C-alpha cells in the first residue's frame, strides 16, 4: 500500500469515527458530553499538529550543527593536498 493510500485510509477511518460520534449516525444515544467533545476534535487535532510541527522544526533549526571544525580541517587538508599533489607532478 502506498503512503498516500495509507493516509487516505487512516483519515477516512478517523472521519468515520468522528462523524459516527458527533452526528450519532448509529443511534447509539451517547451521552451529550461525548458528542460535545468529539465535535471540535478534528480542528483541535489539526491545530495541535500544526503547533507541534512549528515547535519541532524551530527546535531543529536552532540546534542545527555548524561544523566550524570540519570546515577548518577541510581547508587545511586542501592546502596539504595541493602541496603534495604538486610534488607528485600534478599540473593544476
Amino acid at each position, binding site marked *: 500500500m502506498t503512503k498516500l493510500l495509507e493516509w487516505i485510509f487512516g483519515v477516512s477511518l478517523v472521519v468515520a469515527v468522528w462523524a459516527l460520534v458527533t452526528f450519532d449516525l448509529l443511534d447509539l444515544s451517547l451521552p451529550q458530553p461525548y458528542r460535545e467533545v468529539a465535535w471540535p476534535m478534528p480542528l483541535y487535532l489539526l491545530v495541535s499538529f500544526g503547533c507541534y510541527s512549528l515547535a519541532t522544526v524551530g527546535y531543529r533549526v536552532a540546534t*542545527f550543527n*555548524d561544523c566550524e571544525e570540519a570546515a577548518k580541517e577541510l581547508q587545511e587538508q586542501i592546502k596539504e593536498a595541493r602541496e603534495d599533489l604538486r610534488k607528485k607532478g600534478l599540473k593544476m
Partner: protein
Amino acid sequence: MASRKSSHPNRDRVDKYSVLLPTYNERENLPLIVWLLVKYFGESGYNYEVIVIDDGSPDGTLEVAEQLQKIYGEDKILLRPRAKKLGLGTAYIHGMRHATGNFIIIMDADLSHHVSVVYFVVKQKEANYDLVSGTRYRGNGGVYGWDLRRKLISRGANYLTQVLLRPGATDLTGSFRLYKKKVLESLVEHCVSKGYVFQMEMIVRARQLNYTVGEVPISFVDRVYGESKLGGNEIVSFVKGLLTLFATT
C-alpha cells in the same frame, strides 16, 4: 612464503570498497577529493578503488583524472568517462559495471562532504548493514556556511519528508552513502525517479525491501569552489518529487 593465519578466520574474501565519483566540471575539486580518499583509505588499510565517471566535462576534468591515474596507479584510479551529461542514476549503473569491490560508496566530488569515509566502513561492519547513509541531522553531523533561510528550508523540507514518507532515515536528500554492491544493484533496478529524488527514492525503497539502514553523521561544508543554489525552482521540484514518492511508494 609460509601461510599466514588471518586475524579474521571466517573471511575468505577481502572486502573492497569502490568509490564512485560522477563528475561534471570538477577540475579543481577532483584532485583534492582523490587525495583525501587515498589518504584516508590508505591509513585505514582497507582495500579500495576510485572510479571517476566524467560526463564529458568541458573544463578538462578527465585530463586531470588521467594525471591522477598516473600518480596513484591504474588499479586505484579507474576512469570510466561518458560522452555527455547523462544523469546520476545511469552514472551509478555505469560505475557499478566496472566496480570490482563488493561495497559501493557514492559521494559528491565537489568537496561538500568532509571525507569521513572510513566511518561509513566501520559503521557498516557494526551490524552488517545493507546500506549506510550519511546524515546532517543527527549526532555531530551538520552544515557549514548555511544562513538561517537555508537551514529553515532544509529542516522544514526534511520534516515534511518524515511526516509523509516515514522513511526510517533522518536524511533523505544526502548523497554520501555506502551500499553493498548487490543491494545497490537491486535498488537501482527498482527506482524510477531522476536526480536527487532518485536518492530519496533509494532509501524509501530500501526500507520497503527490508534492507537494513545504518546512519553516520556527516559534515556538509558548503561548496569550496563555486556556488550552491537553493531557489524557488529547487523547492518546487523537491515538493513535486516528494509528492510523487508519497503517491507511488
